[in-house]
């Protein structure tokens, strides 16, 4: 457990993605099976021990530590696992430091009744850092900033295998992934994936920079403002994967239930908005459904999800990814009637005459759920990742507003000494400046230096890491869309706000009014 405890401690304090990656690569290379497999599963929150919950740990602590002291400590520390790890009395004598797999085996074998005794005996064999690692392993909530995507990249890097292969295999093999490591280290063949609902790495698009493609070679579709999903049915099971290859099936049980065909689809997950007369609602509405482990009936009723399907990667055991888009499209259109229309519809191809016609339609599109258009090369197969010339995304021109900087906060990592996160506002009818958003990108390094100096020279108040600044600097803020929001005093929330220009020339009084922004809301 010592190596694993040291790894998570390093990950907690390491902010840069590349450094996190290097730490995991090193761990995977130098840790034996099955420990490394269990460890990586724990980091990506892929383990669950139903008999061991936070309540189990609290009850167990009550047998060793005064309850009032536990309560005071928990209040100060803010985390049950960490409090318990620090409070657990060190057992006398040498500690034999159980391995990660010994701990996993013990926790997995636990029943409700013997879980406390099993956890207690493990805690007695560990030091404070080891106890923290064990309790995080048992309870989840690791919060070390390691996504499934990062873990897969680390695996690919550690063993010099293509990350696309790792992505496909990952979800097909349960922890501790022994066949995966055997394949990675060249000790075994690539595992066979027949009859498994595995993830296929997504094909991605480049932004359309030069509007000079030959339109005849491309098909155009609307780019919907939802989340990209892949739904896979295989081995009698349906799974939904997000862009990063994370499984999100449990958040959308109605889609899992409705998808009963042996097929793999690629599409956009949206929710139906009442305001839109049953059409796709804005991203704001979809956000209500994201990041949930369980979904209430009310959620299902208020924010019904559906998928707008735009590609068919496989059907009835046949892999279609090698076919050109035009053939896959034909197969998709033929396939769609097999899915319930209540939960799946077809993403329509825009029948633009030429590029100018498409540009005109794109400019005219003001549907809340339309983000722009997609251009897909008609003869291109479905390939993982972002390949030049095959798929393009052509977003709608961003909206902009002139806002006034109100607060600034220091950034992370390389930007830790710079005030790089800005909260900005617009004027209410009463002449009050109300925050409308927060942005931390869009400026050059030179501009950042200038902004940092501005913040330091114009500070009015300090609240911990936040500085309130003199309300004198106008920032032109670009954003993809703006929505009504109850969470903010201004009643507005921006999507993807970024700083597009610093308007040193503009007096703060001439910045935009809230009413102007409200008129842009979708």
């Amino acid at each position, binding site marked *: 457990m010592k190596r694993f405890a040291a790894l998570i*401690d390093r990950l*907690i*304090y*390491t*902010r840069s993605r590349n450094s996190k990656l290097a730490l995991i690569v090193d761990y995977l290379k130098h840790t034996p099976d099955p420990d490394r497999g269990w460890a990586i599963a724990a980091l990506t929150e892929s383990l669950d021990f139903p008999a061991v919950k936070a309540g189990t740990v609290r009850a167990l602590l009550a047998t060793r*530590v*005064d309850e*009032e*002291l536990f309560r*005071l*400590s928990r209040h*100060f*520390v*803010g*985390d049950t696992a*960490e*409090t318990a790890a*620090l*409070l657990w009395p060190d057992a006398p004598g040498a500690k034999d430091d159980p391995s990660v797999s010994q701990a996993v085996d013990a926790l997995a074998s636990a029943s409700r009744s013997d879980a406390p005794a099993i956890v207690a005996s493990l805690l007695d064999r560990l030091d*404070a850092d080891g106890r*923290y690692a064990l309790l995080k392993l048992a309870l989840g909530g690791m919060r070390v900033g390691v996504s499934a995507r990062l873990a897969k990249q680390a695996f690919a890097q550690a063993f010099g295998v293509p990350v696309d292969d790792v992505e496909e295999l990952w979800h097909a093999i349960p922890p501790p992934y022994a066949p995966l490591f055997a394949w990675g280290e060249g000790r075994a063949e690539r595992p066979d994936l027949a009859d498994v609902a595995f993830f296929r790495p997504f094909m991605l698009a480049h932004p359309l920079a030069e509007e000079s493609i030959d339109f005849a070679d491309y098909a155009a579709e609307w780019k919907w403002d939802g989340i990209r999903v892949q739904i896979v049915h295989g081995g009698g099971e349906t799974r939904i994967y997000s862009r990063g290859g994370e499984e999100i099936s449990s958040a959308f049980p109605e889609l899992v239930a409705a998808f009963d065909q042996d097929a793999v689809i690629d599409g956009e997950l949206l929710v139906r908005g009442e305001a839109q007369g049953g059409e796709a609602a804005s991203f704001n509405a979809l956000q209500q459904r994201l990041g949930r482990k369980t979904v209430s009936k009310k959620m299902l009723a208020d924010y019904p999800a559906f998928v707008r399907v735009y590609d068919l990667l496989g059907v009835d055991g046949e892999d279609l990814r090698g076919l050109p888009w035009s053939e896959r499209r034909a197969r998709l259109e033929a396939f769609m009637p097999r899915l319930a229309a209540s939960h799946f519809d077809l993403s329509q191809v825009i029948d633009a005459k030429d590029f100018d016609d498409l540009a005109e339609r794109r400019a005219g599109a003001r549907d809340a759920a339309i983000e722009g258009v997609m251009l897909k090369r008609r003869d291109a197969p479905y390939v993982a990742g972002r390949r030049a010339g095959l798929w393009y995304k052509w977003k709608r021109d961003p909206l902009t507003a002139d806002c006034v900087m109100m607060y600034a906060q*220091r950034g*992370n990592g390389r930007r*830790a*000494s710079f005030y790089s996160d800005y909260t900005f506002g617009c004027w209410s009818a009463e002449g009050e400046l109300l925050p409308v958003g927060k942005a931390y990108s869009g400026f050059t390094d030179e501009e950042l230096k200038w902004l940092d100096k501005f913040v*330091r020279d114009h500070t009015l108040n300090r609240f911990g890491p936040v500085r309130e600044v003199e309300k004198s600097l106008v920032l032109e803020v670009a954003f993809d869309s703006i929505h009504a929001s109850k969470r903010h005093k201004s009643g507005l929330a921006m999507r993807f706000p970024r700083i597009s220009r610093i308007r040193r020339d503009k007096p703060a009084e001439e910045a935009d009014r809230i009413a102007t922004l409200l008129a842009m809301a979708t």
Partner: protein
Amino acid sequence: MAKAKTWIEPHPSGIYVKPADVWIDPSRPVERAAVTHGHADHARSGHGSVYATPETLAIMALRYGVDAEASHNAAFPYGEGFERGGVRFSFHPAGHVLGSAQILMEYAGERIVVTGDYKRRADPTCARFEVVPCDIFVTEATFGLPVFRHPPTEDEIAKLIGAVRAEPERSVLVGAYALGKAQRVIAELRGAGWDAPIYIHGALEKMCHLYAIHGVDLGELRLVSETDKAAMAGQIVLAPPSALNDRWSRRLPDPVTAMASGWMRVRQRARQRMVELPLVISDHADWDELTATIIDVNPKETWITHGSEDGLLRWCELHQRKARALHLVGRDLEEEA
């Protein structure tokens, strides 16, 4: 025996010793102040007379412009003291920072000890805490919760040296309070065999010099402001915590941000401060030291001045020891712990 409550009064701004008309560590200017140690939340400027150890007076002269030589101030080495209004005051090592003292007061057959801040473990920069038997023990409780158990200092120093060696193209920047912690980290590094020059922020220079004058060997120190960026790769740099992640740190080669403080025991605390390398090195007693000290001193009553009073009060209750919290104001718990 006199009743303590008739001659010693806890006030939010300090402890008042009535028959002597002397305040202990007052947070506002008074006629006569007995000061336990030089940290700003205990030692302030503007008092009529200051009674303290010679080292504490020297620190107050440096930091707050107190005239250590003036006849109205008086310095007492450990074990010595003075009498006023029938109260006998004496100063005894507290092990917190250079010159830090517990103040023992004896009056009408009753003994009261005020610890100021203290720790029990060894510190190469100051005299070690001595147990002074008393009737009323007035203790601090900065780390008065059982989650605070400081690991062995040598383990934390080894972690620091390990981090420097692991990435020789970077420097490790250690945030350490300017009085006490900085000098202790340097002295501990020397004790662990780190002979290279240690680079310091300008704000640490004078206090390091004062320590050296008082016989604490800190080895070769160099100012960051007078050093080329590249020369600090693979080296240890010390700065006050406020300079971490500030513009000043841009003059260092890709620094790893470390911080030496007892608060680093709690992971979220360290993360909030953007610390990459937390070092649990404290000049305050941890939970085990606090409780062991109450047992060692074995007073009739324990008064708790500042920190996590509730935790230590609860412990006293569980161990059938009479205790009360004093609720002193103005104690800065964050920076120097």
